């Protein structure tokens, strides 16, 4: 390589200072310190993030597929540090936490020991709906549709001042996604009230 920077390249200190040590003891020392920093950073799984004072736990027969679906189709963010996994491939169970804004939903195995909550897939009904506010609900909707979501209420402007749609996830839990008119206006779009 030859250009205006050649003079600078020759000024590269390790080409000039012959006495700089190549492998000083710093590596061993800093590796040790890094590993103890890493060890000290291991709180309980929930210590990583303080969860909201109230949040739901949803049950799925296949919670791994559910986690993938919620992240991929509904664009929820997993709080990865919080995940807890048990067992081997044949008896695998997982607890995971996903986030939308300040809200959190916990997902776990259906009818698991102790908690005994069920997947809508098993009981044929559901008794709860997740209400989620998102940024740019039209884009959220378009993404969900493109990702193959089961849309159970088309996107529309609701009379109480929100644009919203509903979708049912892979095991039948119902999700309601909305954006407030004030937030839609704040990003420079018009809403029915303006008309």
């Amino acid at each position, binding site marked *: 390589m030859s250009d205006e920077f050649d003079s*600078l390249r020759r000024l590269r200190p390790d080409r000039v200072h012959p006495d700089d040590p190549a492998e000083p003891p710093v590596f061993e020392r800093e590796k040790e310190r*890094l590993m103890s*920093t890493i060890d000290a950073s291991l709180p309980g799984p929930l210590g990583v993030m303080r969860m909201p004072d109230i949040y739901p736990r949803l049950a799925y027969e296949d919670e791994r597929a559910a986690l993938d679906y919620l992240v991929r189709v509904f664009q929820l963010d997993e709080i990865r540090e919080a995940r807890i996994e048990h067992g081997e491939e044949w008896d695998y169970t997982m607890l995971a936490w996903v986030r939308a804004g300040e809200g959190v939903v916990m997902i776990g195995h259906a009818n698991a020991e102790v908690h005994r909550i069920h997947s809508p897939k098993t009981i044929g009904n559901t008794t709860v709906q997740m209400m989620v506010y998102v940024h740019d609900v039209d884009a959220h909707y378009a993404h969900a549709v493109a990702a193959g979501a089961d849309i159970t209420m088309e996107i529309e402007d609701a009379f109480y001042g929100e644009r919203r749609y509903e979708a049912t996830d892979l095991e039948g839990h119902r999700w309601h996604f909305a954006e407030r008119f004030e937030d839609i206006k704040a990003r420079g779009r018009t809403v029915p009230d303006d008309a």
Partner: protein
Amino acid sequence: MAAESDAELIAASLEEPGCFGAVFDRHATVVFRYLVRRVGVDEADALLGEVFRVAFEKRATYDTARANARPWLYGIATNLLARHRRGEARRIRATARLLARQQPADDPADRVVGTLDARELWPHVAEAVAALPEEERDALLLYAWEELSYEEVADALGVPVGTVRSRLNRARVRLRELRPTIGREQ
């Protein structure tokens, strides 16, 4: 088992933080040499651990589409260097003096400087580099000393490639301006 990419290691370290130790094993030497080049052994010694501690804390934000973590680590190191600018200016001046002494004034191999006296030139290059705006100097040294590509420099500094190109162009112009300056002084 095939060797894991840095991105895979970093992703794995979210669940098993101990995996992050391997990122240190892979890149500590390169990062250390970079720090030494810019601020000398003593300050590099103090900074090396910090680079990897910061990286560890930020690992959840690592873009796992980037298999090689080296540009990312260069970026973190460069940010930390911002607090050591005076040490850096001292370092490059000292290097220039040493280089000027090492090199006979009539060194025929000295094609870069042409007929100019090396004892005059090197301090001028050092001053020019020391006087560059920080963002230009960061881009320039990552490119010229660390031999990162434009794309890698952009990754490291968190700016578009076009920005790297224009920073390097500005630095290029400033270094080119040195020649007439030295000519007049002679």
